[in-house]
């Protein structure tokens, strides 16, 4: 009987904790564990990329970011370099955007662009 009441106390206590915990904390934990991955896509004659967080499409980039015009990446490797940089930024919880300077340093743009 003592054992039974102990089990009952534990069960009720667990339920209380479950109710008391904010539900958001669970989704936050899941969110932080979600893998970030990128995918290279074909856009006409050129290439772009997608950034996925788990099953959620976060960014779809058909054209080179930051610059005027609708210009695709010339090669899958160029798109991959930028997608990798964004993935790295997301994993560091920093801004997932690309600047013109970064495009120059990745040899995707030349300085005079």
């Amino acid at each position, binding site marked *: 009987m003592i054992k039974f*009441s102990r089990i009952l*106390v534990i069960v*009720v206590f667990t339920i*209380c904790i479950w109710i008391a915990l904010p539900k958001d904390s669970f989704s936050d934990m899941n969110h932080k564990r979600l893998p970030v991955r990128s995918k290279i896509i074909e856009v006409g004659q050129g290439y772009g990329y997608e950034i996925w967080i788990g099953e959620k*499409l976060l960014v*779809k980039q058909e054209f080179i*970011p*930051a610059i005027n015009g609708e210009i695709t990446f010339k090669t899958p490797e160029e798109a991959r370099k930028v997608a990798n940089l964004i993935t790295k930024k997301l994993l560091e919880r920093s801004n997932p955007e690309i600047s013109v300077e970064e495009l120059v340093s990745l040899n995707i743009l030349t300085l005079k662009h």
Partner: protein
Amino acid sequence: MRKAVHYSKLISLMVVSTTAFIFSCSTDEDEESLGNWINRSVFDGSPRSGMSGFTIGNIGYMGVGYDGDDYLNSFWTYDIEGDFWSQKADFPGSARNAAVGFQIDGKGYIGSGYDGVDELNDFYTYDPSSNTWTQVASIESTKRRSAVAFSANGFGYFGTGYDGENDRKDFWKYDPSSDTWTEQVGFGGNKRRSATTFTINGLIYLGTGISNGIYLNDFWAFDPSNESWTKKTDLDEEGNYNIERSRAVGFSLNGYGYIACGEINGASTSVWEYDPATDMWEAKTNFEGSSRQDAVAFANTTRAFVGLGRSGSLYLDDLDEFFPLAEYDEED
């Protein structure tokens, strides 16, 4: 004796949990309002506030802003149907926040604002079909931030705000065909900054904002057909109204106007619905994300999203879709 101790523990735990359960239920019922928010997208790791934007068709456009360290000039689109973001051409002016954004006939405009040192008066237009920015005419006579802007009948309108020394009440009209700004007269409201507008059936409604620490309670409708302003019922007319605030977002959906979030002595999550037929307001379900100010709203004729913005020192980065007629559901 030990058994008795255990039973009393058990009973006290059950009482505590039952009380907690009843309390949470009754709170829900007390605050029952129609409207539901569903989290749509996570603009992950890119916290920013004081952005400017506009909606054209099924695409929300937003850019510039401040991330706590830097003023930004990057510019993004949110695809309402596909629920994803794309980075577009950088805003070509100096990085800034507290700018205005509006669209005229399918072209976007962002201008004015604050670059961390000065208020600004330059404007730029964005062509979505070519992903290109072009500078347009500045408002030469006045620089300002935290103004409002909207468009009607092919013209842009810009007014109120803070010029670095004073809050303002003057309005300016932009004609894209001649690329000129001309001053408009006739706004009878007080000077203010960080006000909000929304457009219903071709009429523009303007309210909220702050001046000299006072949250303003006047509410106005602008009829672009004769460019006249009409005073509507004050925002504190009814005893249960709690609409006054600054840095809120405004949008319209299905013939109703909404003022959401913003700050009144701290960040707010409350949402109010305006019915133009009765000139009355009704409280809706609070924004389900964290409280925020300087947020952004995207709305086309059928769907509305509110997100980003900041709450105190914490920057936020999510976007929620608002369903004004749905029952509140805390699980989504």
